[in-house]
């Protein structure tokens, strides 16, 4: 995979300007402060109140985790608005031509804009999470560090994936209204992702969350690459002339892309790394499983306790209590 060259100082110039713009309006600042302080304080206070007024330990523990997830997710949605606005907003305000006429490379403009949006969103997410932790956990006798760290990592990756997707939309939309409509292509898949993440948090197993974060990293990298590859001064500045006959144009693009497709052997060579990973992954995984099973790499106690847990779930799961969050096993 070849990454584009960029001068970090110049990307930082673009990012700093965008950040200044994002924090230059009082209404935006108020919204940000509200997201970072009001919601976490409210959610944290709710958890504490439940604990104080006799909520069961398992319920309070679970609720404190769901609260953390809730507090982190809401500011992350803010990133979507900022990212959608990044290119199409500048285009509508007619400032884009000036930016594109400078010697900045495509990679510098793209990276600067993505970094600016990520900085705002992640500051809000982590600010909110810290405030929430300070309000909710002291005195509760419970601090799930592993799950909170996994949640923090998966949040970065989720926000990066959302931002990358929104920047792709922003690059391709002609107006802000069109960009907002197209944002549903991000919101709908993300809602599924969030439900999965919420289920993993309720399950209380940090290792699944780490795997989830890894998956989101891959999605974010793919989307960021797609966004960069789709960045074209030409497309951003082209007049709307020649945009009639959309179906004919789409067919033309498809035909042209097939026309540019490399020969079969060359295509195999270009895709050698993913194909090697795919070909080697299954036997390597099977071998690793066999080695782990035959060499007692996994302690027998763990295997036994998992068996017991599974049998207790299948026999009397309705009568069992919530899994104990401290040991991540069902009581």
């Amino acid at each position, binding site marked *: 995979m070849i990454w584009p060259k960029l001068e970090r100082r110049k990307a930082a110039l673009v990012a700093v300007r965008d950040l200044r713009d994002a924090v230059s309006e009082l209404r935006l600042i108020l919204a940000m402060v509200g997201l970072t302080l009001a919601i976490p304080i409210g959610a944290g206070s709710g958890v504490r109140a439940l604990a104080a007024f006799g909520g069961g330990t398992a319920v309070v523990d679970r609720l404190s985790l769901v609260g953390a997830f809730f507090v982190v997710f809401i500011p992350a949605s803010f990133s979507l608005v900022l990212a959608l606005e990044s290119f199409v907003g500048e285009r509508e305000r007619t400032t*884009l031509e000036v930016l594109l006429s400078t010697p900045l490379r495509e990679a510098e403009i793209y990276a600067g804009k993505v970094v600016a949006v990520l900085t705002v969103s992640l500051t809000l997410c982590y600010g909110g999470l810290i405030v929430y932790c300070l309000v909710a956990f002291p005195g509760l006798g419970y601090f799930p560090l592993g799950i909170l760290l996994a949640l923090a990592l998966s949040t970065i990756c989720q926000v990066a994936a959302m931002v990358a997707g929104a920047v792709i939309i922003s690059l391709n939309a002609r107006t802000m209204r069109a960009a907002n409509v197209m944002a549903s292509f991000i919101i709908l898949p993300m809602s599924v992702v969030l439900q999965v993440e919420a289920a993993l948090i309720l399950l209380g197993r940090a290792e699944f969350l780490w795997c989830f974060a890894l998956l989101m990293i891959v999605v974010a990298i793919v989307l960021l690459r797609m966004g960069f590859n789709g960045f074209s001064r030409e497309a951003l500045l082209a007049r709307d002339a020649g*945009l009639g006959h959309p179906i004919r144009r789409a067919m033309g693009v498809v035909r042209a892309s097939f026309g540019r497709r490399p020969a079969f052997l060359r295509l195999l060579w270009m895709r050698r790394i993913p194909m090697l990973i795919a070909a080697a992954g299954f036997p390597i995984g099977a071998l690793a499983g066999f080695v782990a099973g035959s060499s007692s790499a996994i302690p027998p106690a763990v295997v036994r306790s998992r068996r017991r847990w599974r049998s207790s779930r299948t026999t009397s799961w309705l009568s069992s209590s919530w899994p104990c969050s401290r040991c991540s096993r069902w009581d």
Partner: protein
Amino acid sequence: MLQVEGLAKRYGDVLALQDLTVSVEAGQCLVLLGRNGAGKTTALRCMAGVLLPSGGMVKVDGIDAADDPAAVRARVGLMPEVPGLYERMSVRAYLDHFGAIYDIEPETRRSRIDELLEVFELTDAGDRWLGTFSKGMRQKVALIRATLHRPRLVLADEPTSALDPDSARRAWIYLKDLQRKGSALVICTHSMEEAEHLAGDIGIMSAGRALAIGNLVELRRRSGLKMRQEVRELPTLQDIYLAIVDNHRDLAEVRTA
């Protein structure tokens, strides 16, 4: 300084520019005239390395815009038709931002910004947000931004269209001064007075083509216009422009290839 040969630009099905050939030496000024949609802005964008030509070649300072557009953009100062300023920045912060993008040293940047704000009588407004500026003031800021890095080639699209006569005259003096210092200028305008004041060569464009390129004397001869009978004076550029465009009316709007 600028060599353009057979330049063509296509947007989808529309051929916006075709077969444009011009050259501008250092210290020279080319003014492009033409009705709306004649291809002037597209020509400027191609010369600035912002758009890649669909055909032909653009070289700035010997660098081909298709080979190294970033190097071309570093040598060019483009002033678009719409100033396109960041409304929530002060003038100084705005110019400083673009100065940094063009790698101007902070000290030099500050002194140049002060000097140019003085030239355009904007010193007192230096710390005001650009969103509070009038149309004319915005145009002045756009001109300062385009020339802050002392580009070898200045490309300006209607640089004085929103300026009052006094400010316009001041802008012309500034552009003439840049020319004297060795910058090449290409200016698109609808103001015949501006064209007569600034131009060395004049290009008249219509329907994406250059109908005529030359200095005022050559164009006068080519237009076939004689002395204006009623006042016994030479025909103005306005007369010449209208005569040439009228002679090529058949070319007019049909550009679909």
